[in-house]
């Protein structure tokens, strides 16, 4: 196909220089598709670096992967794309994890409604959910890229904080929603929150010495031992969430966060054998 008219020199120059307005650029492009003469005039005039940039732009549009569901949600919430990518790899931000979370919360709610002391089950289990989620998000046993992440310059503490914050938020929202459905006094819906934060921070602090999952397991066992007496008939079922216990949790939280701050360099090294 040939054309009866050709691009004016000055139009061509403006297009090549990248200063043609969009409408003009579009008509130049429409014309050169059908006009071999103008194509031959145009091609040598364009600087190769600019061609490369355009090609890379095309590649980027075509080739860059579409982000998964977790990443899309994070991006919509305004999280930066590099942070979203780091979070997308968190094992405890995946569908399977949320399903098991819902199952545990559902069972705990059922028992709370079924019996008098059933609420203890909820109060004992709910604080452990973020603990498990946070420990899973950075343990070498559950993060397959832990070794590479350790050798990378990205701050391990920052990665830990970013992931812990995301896991905490997601878990606390879910457990919080479930807690609204608890029978009894309305303050119970938030009573488990401070124990949850204290246990999570405690796990982080212990992880500066021990394997994160082991730290979580140790603290969980301790917590269950502390809550166990509440199951006994005649005892106060809400002992572990009364104001005295809340104060203890607050103290633990402060000490644990301080420990993490002081010992933060421990996160930047691996503890031993590869897994």
């Amino acid at each position, binding site marked *: 196909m040939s054309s009866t008219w050709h691009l004016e020199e000055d139009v061509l120059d403006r297009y090549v220089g990248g200063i043609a307005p969009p409408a003009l650029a579009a008509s130049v492009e429409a014309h050169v598709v059908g006009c071999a003469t103008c194509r031959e005039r145009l091609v040598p005039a364009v600087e190769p670096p600019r061609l490369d940039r355009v090609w890379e732009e095309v590649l*980027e549009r075509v080739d860059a992967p579409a982000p998964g569901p977790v990443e899309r949600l994070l991006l919509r919430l305004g999280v930066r794309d590099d942070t979203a990518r*780091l979070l*997308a790899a968190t094992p405890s931000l995946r569908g399977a994890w949320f399903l098991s979370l819902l199952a545990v919360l559902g069972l705990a709610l059922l028992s709370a409604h079924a019996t008098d002391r059933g609420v203890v089950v909820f109060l004992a289990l709910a604080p452990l959910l973020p603990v498990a989620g946070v420990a899973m998000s950075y343990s070498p046993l559950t993060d397959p890229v832990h070794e590479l992440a*350790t050798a990378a*310059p990205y701050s391990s503490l920052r990665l830990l904080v970013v992931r812990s914050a995301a896991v905490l938020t997601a878990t606390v929202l879910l457990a919080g929603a479930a807690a609204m459905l608890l029978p009894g006094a309305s303050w119970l819906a938030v009573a488990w929150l401070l124990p949850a934060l204290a246990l999570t921070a405690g796990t982080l602090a212990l992880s500066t010495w021990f394997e994160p999952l082991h730290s979580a397991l140790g603290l969980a066992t301790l917590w269950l031992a502390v809550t166990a007496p509440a199951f006994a008939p005649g005892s106060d079922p809400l002992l572990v969430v009364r104001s005295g216990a809340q104060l203890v949790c607050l103290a633990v939280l402060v000490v644990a966060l301080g420990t993490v701050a002081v010992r933060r360099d421990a996160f*930047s*090294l*691996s503890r031993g054998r590869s897994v």
Partner: protein
Amino acid sequence: MSAVRAQGLVKAYGRKRALDGLSLTAGTGVTGLLGPNGAGKTTLLRTVATVLAPDEGQLRLLGRDTSDPKERVEIRRRLGYLPQEPGFHRSFSTFEMVDYVAVLKEQTERRARHDEVRRVLELVGLQDVSSKKVRALSGGMRRRLGLAQALLGEPELLVLDEPTAGLDPEQRMRFRDLMSRAGEDRAVLLSTHQTEDVAALCSSVVVVDRGRTLFTGTVPSLVAVAAGRVWVDEVRDASALAGWRLGSGLFHHVGNPPSGAQLVDATLEDAYLLLLGGQPAPVAA
């Protein structure tokens, strides 16, 4: 300045000393680390990759001290590391996986990062599977994925733990080409079981056993260890340190040759066997 300068490294796991006073220097070029299983190669490479801190000894990388947290970050910015068994997020695509490591390597600008990811994927020949899930890749492809992430950002020091393990001959050639290119202007430290790999591409070689350095030098100087100590015979010589029947029917021996033996040129493998044979656990004849 040597890229790697290790002095008296000790790393113990319980009572076992994986590194037992190991010293090593490596500069520009490809340095091959040879040694039997359990010799401490992986512990050494994890230490050089700044993942493990040694219990004792000094390790300076690229002129910086690994025991200082700030300098360690500086080193990590210029380091590429391929672990022996690199883990991947299997639900990520090939592109996403390398992109993930690029983020960990502080490449925050999205476009530049994606360009870099495409560059390393092309270097290892994985550009056509960039949208494939990691779990769908073959073993050889995953090795190449491991190398691709190590090459991100053109690191000045490359630490590769058995990069050629599990590769077919053609893929090995390709890896050798990539690693020798990398070694032209920076330091590459790699471990391997393949003496052919070392002979083919390493400018210097380090033999380790039981957490210590047995030999450091060039490939020819290691081969020279076995000069005059390799011979062939029509029958098996039980006094040899190591020996095997060749395809030709002759027996190849390494050790102290009897007088009048028919000496042949030594290879790197012969020298390696001799070095290790000097230890209490001899290689079976």
